[in-house]
């Protein structure tokens, strides 16, 4: 086997030193009745060359972004990744190390974690960040559990239906056995406005409500009125949990300036590939006063015995390996390598790079929306201001046909919304990142609108 170093002679010498005569003798503690008496049924072992060919064949049966032009979003984005991110993150000293249990030989990782936490605080204007969680969905659920712990209220949690549907599904699973009512607040005014109506929500908040969860820009790309919502929550003693888009913060007002209590995000857009949905990075930050209820690993500054500045994992009395069933969460690791990627990404982009990235997303998305809706077939489903994503309504109601044909023309054109929203079955979500060129956008418009010439539009 390629990674085993012991030679037959060495194996023999080792068995002798142990005092047994064969490798099988090492397993005598496993009762023979429980042992597998046949080889596992698996394909044959592949050499590196064979594996390489096999994997190339599998990869060739996929059509990735790059081969196709990607206008898909909804929590996973085709943003630009500077080469420095891969160059650094592929260093073995980072990716083959583990959780920094021995700080004296993990200062690289610990300092990077501390830098990550600082960058997240700078980005969000929040006070404290942890060293990351799994992904945006589970981070949202962890934020809600944290809010329940902070407020000592576990009766009710409100979530807007414009929060990512999969995040809401994850939240539903997390709350399933905890006797907490998850109330999904329907879109305001019915019909076409998937955007909050503060009075509807305020009416739902009661003395046993732990928090309100809002996403802005929301799943449909639209901005929500976070500040008013925060006020409404705070008036009733509940917290406001906000899901944000890190790239949007190059331009948009920061959550910390809007009186938000806990913020979470999917961090994939900060320098990580789409990778079919994972591994990603769950960002979480909060107000200073909640820090001892924050789940996950946290790095902190201290000094060594000679007074030199250094970093350690800290506040570990929150965590499962100390507190067991009383811990703030069962989470054991962070997403170290992806927090590192986000740190390198933000360092490489800088404030101007991030600002320009978000402006490009905004401008290009609005160009695409304007061009698409020149066709009579398409309208924007929502009127609210949006960032880099928007919902298109197909008046011919043939989203599947549109997507299928666009795919044949080399375009990943949009995310159909019918699977999550019955009232949006004639709608799809289009995302335009800074990577899309005008020529690509025009191709999208031609493809979708060209189809419209053949399809019947209802009068």
């Amino acid at each position, binding site marked *: 086997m390629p990674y085993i170093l012991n030679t037959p002679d060495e194996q023999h010498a080792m068995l002798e030193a142990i005092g047994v005569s064969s490798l099988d003798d090492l397993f005598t503690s496993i009762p023979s009745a429980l042992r597998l008496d046949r080889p596992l049924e698996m394909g044959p072992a592949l050499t590196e060359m064979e594996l390489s060919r096999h994997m190339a064949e599998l990869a060739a*049966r996929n*059509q990735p972004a790059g081969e196709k032009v990607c206008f898909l979003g909804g929590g996973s984005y085709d943003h630009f990744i*500077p080469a420095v991110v891969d160059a650094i993150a592929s260093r073995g000293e980072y990716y083959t190390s583990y959780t920094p249990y021995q700080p004296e030989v993990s200062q690289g990782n610990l300092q990077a974690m501390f830098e990550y936490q600082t960058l997240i605080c700078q980005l969000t204007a929040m006070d404290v960040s942890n060293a990351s969680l799994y992904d945006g969905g589970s981070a949202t659920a962890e934020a809600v559990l944290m809010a329940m712990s902070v407020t000592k209220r576990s009766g009710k949690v409100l979530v807007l239906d414009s929060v990512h549907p999969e995040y809401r599904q*994850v939240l539903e699973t997390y709350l399933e056995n905890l006797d907490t009512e998850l109330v999904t607040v329907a879109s305001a005014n019915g019909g076409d406005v998937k955007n909050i109506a503060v009075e509807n929500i305020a009416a739902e908040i009661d003395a046993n409500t732990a928090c309100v969860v809002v996403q802005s820009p929301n799943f449909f790309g639209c901005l929500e009125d976070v500040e008013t919502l925060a006020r409404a929550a705070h008036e009733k003693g509940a917290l406001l949990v906000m899901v944000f888009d890190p790239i949007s913060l190059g*331009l948009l*007002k920061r959550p910390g300036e809007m009186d938000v209590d806990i913020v979470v995000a999917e961090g994939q857009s900060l320098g990580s590939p789409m990778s079919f*949905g*994972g591994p990603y990075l769950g960002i979480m930050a909060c107000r200073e006063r909640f820090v001892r209820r924050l789940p996950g690993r946290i790095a902190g500054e201290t000094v060594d*015995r000679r007074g030199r500045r250094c970093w350690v994992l800290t506040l570990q009395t929150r965590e499962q390996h100390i507190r067991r069933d009383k*811990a703030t969460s069962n989470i054991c690791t962070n997403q170290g390598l992806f927090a590192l990627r986000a740190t390198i990404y933000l360092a490489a982009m800088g404030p101007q790079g991030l600002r320009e990235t978000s402006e490009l997303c905004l401008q290009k998305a609005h160009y695409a929306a304007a061009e698409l809706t020149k066709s009579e077939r398409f309208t924007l489903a929502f009127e609210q201001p949006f960032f880099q994503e928007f919902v298109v309504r197909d008046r011919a109601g043939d989203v599947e046909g549109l997507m299928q044909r666009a795919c044949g023309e080399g375009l990943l054109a949009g995310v159909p919304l019918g699977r999550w929203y019955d009232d949006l079955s004639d709608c799809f979500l289009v995302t335009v990142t800074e990577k899309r060129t005008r020529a690509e956008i025009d191709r999208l418009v031609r493809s979708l609108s060209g189809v419209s010439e053949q399809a019947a539009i209802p009068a």
Partner: protein
Amino acid sequence: MRNTSATQLLFELSQPGRRGALLPKCDVPVQALASLLPEGAISEQPPQIPELGEPDVVRHFTNLSTLNMSVDTHFYPLGSCTMKYNPKRNEREASLPGLLHLHPYQREETIQGLLALLSELQDMLAEISGLPAVSLQPAAGAHGEWTALMVAAAYFRDRQEKRTKVLAPDSAHGTNPASARMAGFDAVSVKSRANGYVDLDDLRSKLDDQTAVFMITNPSTLGIFDEQIAEIAEMVHTAGGLIYLDGANMNAILGVTRPGDFGADMMHFNPHKTFSGPHGGGGPGAGPICVTETLGAFLPTPVVVRNGEQYAFDGNRPKSIGRVRSFFGNVGVLVRTYCYLRTHGADGLRRVSENAVLNANYLLSQVRHFLPSPQGERCLHEFVASAADIKKERGVSAMDIAKRLLDYGYHAPTVYFPQTVPEAMMIEPTETESKDTLDAFAATLFKITGEADDLLHDAPHSTRISRPNEVQAARKPVLKWSPAASDA
């Protein structure tokens, strides 16, 4: 030669006006921001993140990397973490654009290669575990534990049984009781005996019609196989409960025995341990779970299914517990797992376990004369040595020895775990280390036990920092850089 001056923070390197990445000019007609976004939505200034050039960034992080120990650079016998070699070929394959740049909402016909891979991975994990139904969705081992407990809860709810307790031995990973709690159960601790076996009398006394699940790590955190497992499974099943196997230690038994064959109803794998996925400085991992056919109906949605030559996601699963994370799973980690399994095949996996167990037993035979192991002469993939005698005689602790190992270029074992063994040092060499390395490590450990007390109390001496003041870090938490602190 190490660049010893390079320990400034990114923020201290920042220079106003310096730039890293440059973006292309906007190629669509630019509109005034005020016409696109409402007043008050735009931040007047971009975020105050540092201003650096690309060479700054590269030198900074490259120098930082040299302050880490890693599997690529050092022997890393961190018990329970299975720090084996991370194959470079897996990194290359996982970086193929056809796998790396797939969007989670792409149409199924554009991801058939990936779905075929995931489907085959489900089959391979089912075969290795002896449990036929697989979910690849959980993001980490602890996440897999919790997911499986949610599956158990749904199963009992479906049977209209109200069961409130999850039992786990006192030697279990802290994640076990924490996961039980998050899944809405009460966590109950079961005693283990000095040899690491479950105390059957204690288990019997706590087992009742309120018991939903007994969680067991077998091989245990002491590196031994609890040969009572069949009896334990029968006891738990008779009481109507389920057995959950914490798969952290699967590296010991691949192709030798299967959890499904020794009574487990559910388990998780740690691909970042057993199947060589890199640990990434603390993640990402993955935590796929395998369960019995009956429990399969309750697994998270979606799962990959094969319809003839086509692969698809099956999201129509009425009894499913739902979703446990966004999107499908940690696919990048799963691709590496697939590469590892295909590289080894059945025979190779068995040899992995044989050599992992050989290495651990050999190291135990070289160490137990001066660092006693409460479990005796034999182990599976890892063993626990105790520094209790030295602590009692000389005041030298497991921590002192661990820190001194760092001076000699070895990562420390896991210390003070399991909590049932005083001054525990949990050592797991893995199969990818050589006899030479194990000999040198054992000789170093022996040498350390003969070194002066003060030398050990003050260790490490050769690392960039000495022991950090962890009490100060927790009492006055400084969790981010701030300009004021830096000026002072």
